[in-house]
């Protein structure tokens, strides 16, 4: 497994130009997640309109993988329904835990297929999942708030 496969251009591009970065109002839930073993941190906000994700904004420090993954995630889920977003999160997570034995679906995962290489670097899988975990948590809280 070469690092060139890991650091695909899509990832480096998102790293250098993170989409939807910065914290924005309005939002329905805000969460802070951290990867204690490496110190990567993210604060993420999600705004919903009913079942639809209207915005995802974040402030984060971390490696290229975690930063790019968060950027790609925000592209993917904004505008989708919560259900669609959670399905994507599950699909992405499955891919990351596949050890690379996976045929990624470009139709659904779009730029996120670039992370297939990360699945072969077990130590970096957590990096790729940080933003997604934060997003899932934020959505759960926003939904809970709405229901209560």
């Amino acid at each position, binding site marked *: 497994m070469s690092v060139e496969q890991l650091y695909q251009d899509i990832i480096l591009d998102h790293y250098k130009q993170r989409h939807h970065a910065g914290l924005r109002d309005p939002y329905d839930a805000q969460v802070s997640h*951290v990867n*204690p*073993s*490496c110190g990567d*941190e993210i604060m993420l906000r999600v705004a919903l309109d009913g079942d639809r994700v209207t915005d995802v904004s974040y402030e984060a420090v971390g490696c290229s993988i975690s930063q790019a993954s968060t950027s790609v995630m925000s592209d993917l889920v904004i505008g989708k329904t919560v259900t669609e977003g959670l399905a994507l999160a599950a699909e992405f997570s499955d891919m990351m835990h596949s050890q690379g034995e996976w045929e990624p679906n470009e139709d659904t995962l779009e730029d996120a297929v670039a992370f297939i290489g990360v699945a072969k670097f*077990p*130590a*970096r899988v957590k990096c790729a999942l940080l933003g997604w975990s934060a997003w899932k948590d934020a959505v759960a809280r926003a939904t809970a708030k709405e229901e209560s």
Partner: protein
Amino acid sequence: MSDRYDVDRVRADFPVLARTINGYPLTYLDSANTSLKPRPVVDAMSDHYLFHNANVARAMHTLGAEATAGYEGGRAKVAAFIGAATPEEIVFTKNASEALNLAANTLGAGLGVGDEIVITVMEHHSNIVPWQLVAERTGATLRWFDITDDFVLDLDKARAENLINERTKVVSFTFVSNVLGTVNPVNELSAWAHSVGARVVVDASQAVPTLDVGPISDLGADLVAFTGHKMLGPTGVGVLWGRADVLASLPPFLGGGEMIAVVEMTGSTYAEPPYRFEAGTPPIAEVVGLGAACDYLTAVGRSAITAHEADITGYALDGLRALEGIRILGPSATIDGLAVNRGGAVAFTVETADGLDVHPHDVMTMLDSRGVAVRGGHHCARPLHRRLGVTASTRLSPYLYSTRAEVDRLIEALTWTRDFFGGKR
């Protein structure tokens, strides 16, 4: 011994069994003190140290990934061995004592005057002293179950005393006594404790090595402690299993690297279980070794080991009962030569024909001169010995590598010892 259990094949994995002591073959009957270690366990650790050693979690390079896989793989093996729901229910400590201190300190954090902690008089010191320290610090009261003349917990007396009541916050007791061999009714005690809202801690140090305790949550306990070195594993590693929701509710115990989420000088937040309870560099190679020990025990066969222990223990009980001057401290009944519903630890006292108590240390030294290794003393259960009206006792404890021939050697050496001290009177 069951025909199907090939003890010689097992023994071949324990090279120390080929040793002679004072010209006699080593007869190791001190497994409740610590078990011998088979070659595959030792080799797994050597291989780890020599070829895959690195720190875990914080090292992300290749060796770090290998060491992490070894460590977390060990966690998964231990989880499977006791039938835990997930590996995250397994917290690694340095021994059972630390696991019990962890339980006492975290469950005890919120206690105060008026609250009660209940243990039993048959506990190992490691399940007494941590609760005494917590009681002292918090003002809570420590109470305990007594035993009957049949060497079992006196549940009637406890009921009469209203031992477990609305003030009871924690009930902690041993699964199998490391002195009496008594097996306590874990389910019944857990249900009783839970009926008043108390947390239940079980010391399974003497149970996990031979009983198939899983699925561990079926015991009904909240936290279960055991130790690696008594189950073919290395020193330096113990286990605290906890129900996920219980672990999640507990505050941190020791502070340091690995157990944190975010550290600021002005305050810190903590990682999720099990990491919250694993401060500093964990016992990495030890967990690799403990995982190999689980593999080994599984390969030999859990039920075969349980059956073998019942056979050797039963044979020892029958042999001791037939010996004049021996008093067995614990259930001694056998059925068809098998021990029934008891562990393999058999403690006893020795008296000469002319009425002299032979002190366990003297017994131990005499037996050692014939290559027989047993333990003499209070076995870290002084209150229990006081309760039994003796200062100390001698204890034999077999394991999967033990044989009837070894029990014969013990009985013979014991007879000689008794007569040596008696004859000189």
